[in-house]
């Protein structure tokens, strides 16, 4: 508390203007989004909302919607970035989904964050908002017994406005291409392995967030330059206020206090995980396509690295130290998530 106050006034002003810039930018680009189906009128006070950007993810959608409906998400707001595989039509049929369509560049709109920031500002104010990708599945302590509403009401009563969930890359045993994924099935029946303890953490003093790297991607694709590996820290669940803004993907937000989701005095705050079902058979085709489009972070460095890895020896992320996922308790024992004081 004291430390954050002691930080220089200049930095605070700088962050403030940065936040205002992001909010204004999102507002200015609102017309890039064309409403396709707008059912936001059905959102009730206290509903939990999910915000998703997607491009050609039709195969993943049925299970995704199913998973989050069961968890207790009341309404989904999708940005459809020019899909041509029928994702848009599928989403339009869903009763609890609103869809916007856009053709503008993913990269040009800060990797979709301008769109999401606008939708959050317009529809998220006062709601608990979960911002995820179609291949990210939120797990949190007690998620097998308690719905998302129990978590958010507990967060409300403990005065917290944001909840962290680190990205946990899941992968199958054996070559990724060899185990085809069928639409609608649980992706973690195939990609059910993860890396238990190879994560590196450093603190970003300016934004206050932790920067977490590691996992199978760093181990397999970024051995030359681990600093360039993907960031795994995420803060996907936020009680939104219209003046908040995501700065870079969902890795960090402004104002800075929303990023302080960890304890620095030795205690543990509650936290969850986003299980990342990226490494399915769908991934191989996608990585070639995305490489051509060149629309991803750091000049699609990730996809280039995957592609190089792919050609070299096929993609098998599994190693003898991988762990098979059994549930949130296992993640807690390993120290990847924590129940904090949510007994």
């Amino acid at each position: 508390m004291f430390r954050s106050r002691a930080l220089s006034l200049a930095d605070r002003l700088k962050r403030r203007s940065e936040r205002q810039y992001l909010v204004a930018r999102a507002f200015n680009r609102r017309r890039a989004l064309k409403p396709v189906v707008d059912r936001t009128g059905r959102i009730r006070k206290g509903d939990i909302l999910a915000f998703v950007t997607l491009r050609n993810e039709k195969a993943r959608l049925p299970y995704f919607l199913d998973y989050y409906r069961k968890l207790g998400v009341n309404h989904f707001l999708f940005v459809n970035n020019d899909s041509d595989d029928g994702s848009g039509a599928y989403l339009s049929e869903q009763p609890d989904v609103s869809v916007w369509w856009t053709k503008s560049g993913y990269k040009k709109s800060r990797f979709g964050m301008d769109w999401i920031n606008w939708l959050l500002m317009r529809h998220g104010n006062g709601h608990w908002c979960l911002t995820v990708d179609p291949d990210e599945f939120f797990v949190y302590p007690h998620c097998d017994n308690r719905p998302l509403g129990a978590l958010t009401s507990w967060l409300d009563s403990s005065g917290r406005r944001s909840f962290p969930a680190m990205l946990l890359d899941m992968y199958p045993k054996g070559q990724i291409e060899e185990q085809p994924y069928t639409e609608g099935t649980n992706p973690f029946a195939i990609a059910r392995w993860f890396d238990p303890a190879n994560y590196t953490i450093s603190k970003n003093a300016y934004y206050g967030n932790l920067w977490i790297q590691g996992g199978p991607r760093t181990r397999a694709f970024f051995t030359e330059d681990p600093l360039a590996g993907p960031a795994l820290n995420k803060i996907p669940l936020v009680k939104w206020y219209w003046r908040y803004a995501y700065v870079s993907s969902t890795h960090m937000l402004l104002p800075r206090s929303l990023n302080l989701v960890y304890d620095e005095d030795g205690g543990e705050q509650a936290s969850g995980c986003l299980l990342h079902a990226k490494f399915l058979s769908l991934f191989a085709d996608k990585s070639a396509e995305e490489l051509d489009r060149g629309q991803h972070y750091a000049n699609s460095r990730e996809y280039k690295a995957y592609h190089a890895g792919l050609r070299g020896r096929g993609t098998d992320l599994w190693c003898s130290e991988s762990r098979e996922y059994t549930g949130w308790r296992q993640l807690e024992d390993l120290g990847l998530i924590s129940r904090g004081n949510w007994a």
Partner: protein
Amino acid sequence: MIAPANAPVRLGVVMLCHSDLDMAARMARIWVEGGARIAIHVDAKATPKAMRGMRAALADLPQVVFSRRHPCDWGRFSLVRATQEAAEALLAAHPDLTHVYLASGSCLPLRPIRDLIAYLAEDPQRDHIESVNALDVGWTVGGLNEERFTLFYPLDWRRRRWLFDRLVNLQRRLGFRRRIPKGITPHLGSQWWCLTTATLRAILEDPRRTEFDRYFRLTWIPDESYFQTLARRHAIRIESQSLTLAKFDHEGKPYQLYDDHMLLLEESRCFVARKVWKGSTGLMTRFPLAAEPQVDPAPPQPQHFERLINRTVRRRLLGRPGLYMQSRFPRKDCENGKTSAPYAIFQGFSDIFPEFETWLAAHVEADVHGHLLGPEMVEFAGRPQVGPGAISSIPQIRDRDPQGFLTALIRVTNRMQVFQFSPRDNQKLNWFMATDPNAQFHVVTGAWMLPLLDCDMPFDDIRRISAQLQRAELKQLEVLNSVWVKARVQIHELNDFMARPQAILGAALQQLQVPVHPAADMPRMRNTAGLPALLRQLRNSGLRPRLTGEGLELPEQSLTERTAAE
């Protein structure tokens, strides 16, 4: 079901409701159907619509009275005022009551009300109110125990926290001390109690009540001290334990109860629990348990449940030692345990004995690694590409966060971790390991020089490398000899070690405190014949060797004898 008219105990309930009046109405019905009379106080901040709904839901129950509504703020006297008035209303409407239970709208009766009545009937004179002397409690929030009673608290903590804290500090600086009214000793305890009407009446009708009320109005959290203090003045027998299972976290917020607590709650045999999350439909349908034919007056046994809560509080406040993760990233020296288990560092041994690692692995029950912090690769035992916990053996990845690397390795493995170290390795962790009570250092200084004997580099390079390594080791020794060291450190000079290697090695193995296979053999020692010559050459080139020990001749007879004698 109505309690028999001749029952010795006639129970009344004072219910305080804030929000969620639907649930409160359901709870009120449970109480009334169990045979209790009830007076309800609804926070004046609740909406008129919700209030109308509640009145309608309870319209068919004549046993229910509503008391005058006050706006209630957490930690303020308004809660006591509401309780007093509701209790007065209850006693006025039902003068024949023998006991009054204070409950909230989210207090869920777990056992049949009949059981509670039977339990109270076992000793009808007893007051059930947790009441602990304010000087002795250690569990109140924010360190305010006695000061709750000796300072003024005119502000609301939730809404004016900053000002609240400033005011407390100001009063402390000015040395403020309120006088506590004569005849009472401050006591604290759970807000939820069950008093006999005799005690309750005595408190409400105390001739000095105005004086007490005026005093408590400006104390801190009077709802946890008003009745608790005054019961001590009037009660005959106090059972200082609340009948309501209500646990608070370190910030003073009540724990919520969910469906997965069902079994624990059942086992706790408590009469009433709070606070139930409004979505826990499983709990609401299960409790109160259906009345058995046999009335069961067994006392509550909340210990098991309390242990669970205390465990969680500990995790929130202290965390798991040696864990660094997304929601636990302690500042330096706030770690509550820098690492999770003991580990040992052998420095110089692998230079003296080239096969030391395999030899040691065969003799101790531990994971013996090579140079984990080495510059070429992370030398995990067996040299796999990917080590325990899927930690990469690539040094660039390790050097991104060496502390995270070491703590993760120690936490993810089950056996003790032992590894080699030398001045050639990454030195970033020197302070971290030296200040960690789990670390064990066995150091032979100057041993890094031995591998230089066998290499065929030009002398200029040897001199340059020697200078670098000597500088690194001197810097490390400064750390290991500082007053901040918490690790167990054994330092031997090379000279000293060579004089009696077996004894020192044996002692080091014993210190590991893991099962050791008796070490009859010694590992092969490197040939040290050229060392005196090298040392002389280094000295003559202007570099003073400082770490191998006194004297050039190795081993020096007189010196070893002296050391042994010491």
